[in-house]
């Protein structure tokens, strides 16, 4: 089926949207500021014969004309391959050094290691994933990038236990859930071939459970960021609508450095809580990136 056609009613310039989804994405790396400066990373890559270009909105991101894994700065943990939009949610969460942060669906750790860098490797990042194989990729990344403030748990995030962490709630949580991944079509064109509405509905159930646990495990006044790489409202605004009704939290405005569109309040006959307009949708044609969805919640209860 033509999955993208579903979104014609939501997207302003649908032809540009479809055309962007068909273009491949450039490789992007994030400089690991725990290890080096952007300037030295650039210098090392140039010396390795790699052309690098800055990314305007994020000083630590560099676009490469090469694969990010086979060069000296990679070996030293100076850089980490990470798509541009994937660097957004950690910035929106904006953790400070010394805080307690939960990364609920963490593997393979691109955002975990970015959170640790934003915190200057101080405080605690608890990185959870239910997939042991993917956690081993996360472990390789934390080791290579020299992160030492991360604790890793292998469990279903819906029943995440605070017991190993002295039962104390978090200051912030990042809930970067598994999803139908439509927004990664520029990297994996097969994603859409495997798409089914049953999968979307099934995974939305898991997303609701994980986001609820994220809100419960965060202290009142704390922040929870919910993100996906899909356009499907069932997995985005639909999940927020459910959690707003079930848990003590509210949506707050997100100030993004990229062009984006507001969350949608209606979809296929469903009406969502009006505050979901505060969530942000990023379509591939708006900034020539992958697709993304990001919302920021404040815990009130």
């Amino acid at each position, binding site marked *: 089926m033509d999955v993208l056609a579903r979104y014609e009613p939501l997207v302003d310039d649908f032809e540009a949207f479809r055309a962007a989804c068909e273009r491949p994405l450039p490789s992007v790396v994030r400089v690991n500021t725990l290890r080096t400066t952007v300037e030295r990373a650039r210098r090392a890559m140039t010396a390795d014969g790699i052309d690098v270009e800055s990314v305007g909105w994020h000083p630590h991101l560099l676009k490469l004309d090469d694969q990010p894994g086979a060069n000296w700065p990679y070996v030293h943990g100076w850089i980490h391959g990470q798509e541009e939009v994937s660097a957004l949610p950690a910035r929106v969460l904006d953790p400070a050094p010394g805080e307690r942060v939960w990364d609920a669906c963490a593997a393979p750790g691109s955002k975990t290691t970015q959170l640790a860098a934003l915190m200057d490797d101080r405080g605690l990042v608890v990185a959870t994933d239910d997939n042991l194989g993917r956690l081993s990729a996360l472990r390789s990344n934390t080791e290579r990038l020299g992160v*030492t403030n991360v604790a890793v748990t292998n469990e279903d995030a819906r029943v995440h236990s605070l017991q190993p962490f002295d039962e104390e709630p978090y200051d912030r949580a990042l809930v970067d859930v598994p999803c139908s991944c439509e927004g990664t079509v520029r990297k994996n064109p097969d994603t859409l071939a495997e798409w089914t509405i049953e999968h979307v509905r099934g995974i939305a159930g898991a997303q609701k459970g994980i986001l609820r646990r994220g809100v419960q495990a965060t202290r009142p006044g704390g922040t929870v960021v919910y993100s996906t790489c899909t356009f499907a409202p069932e997995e985005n605004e639909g999940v927020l609508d459910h959690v707003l009704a079930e848990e003590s939290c509210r949506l707050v405005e997100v100030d993004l450095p990229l062009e984006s569109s507001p969350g949608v309040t209606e979809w296929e006959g469903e009406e969502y809580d009006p505050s979901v307009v505060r969530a942000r949708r990023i379509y591939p044609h708006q900034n020539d990136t992958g697709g993304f969805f990001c919302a920021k919640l404040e815990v009130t209860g």
Partner: protein
Amino acid sequence: MDEDGGGDGAADSGDAPTNDGQRFDRLPATADERTVPERPTREEVLAWWDERFGIEPAVFAEHTFWERGSGKIWAFRGELTTPVEIEALGMTCLRTRQEHWKPTMSAIQRFGEHATRNVVHLAREQAATFLAGEDQDLDWDGDWGYLVVTHDLAGGSEPLGVGLYVYGELRSQVPKGRRRDLR
């Protein structure tokens, strides 16, 4: 997992408290506080880094040390109530099971910049051979044993990994998952 990451479940027999491959136990500060025989103390770990590489205890002031599985020491920048039953806690740091304690590549990349002795600096070509996991002849008139291997990157000397120097040869200790051929 690229090095020393998995618990191997090794447990000593007998009635004394033992090591558990599935859980992290904080190292006792000193020998007086030791309850598990053979478990190294924080004091010993700090002394080892200082003696072997000249890395001062102050470098680890904010880190706690933990053992999971016998002799696998991890460094975590924070405090938790011991024991902790989770997948990973901070970074793998040191293996103390064998006669000669062995630092991990990650710990050397992270803390090796503070080393003042038993550091060998390689030229680019030698560094590439080392990173590929190969052994090479080396002129070195210092101690035998584990060395911090450095090379130049972007205008500075950077710690790359651990080498074992014996019989005129530098043996690469780069774990399989981190080897690359950049030659």
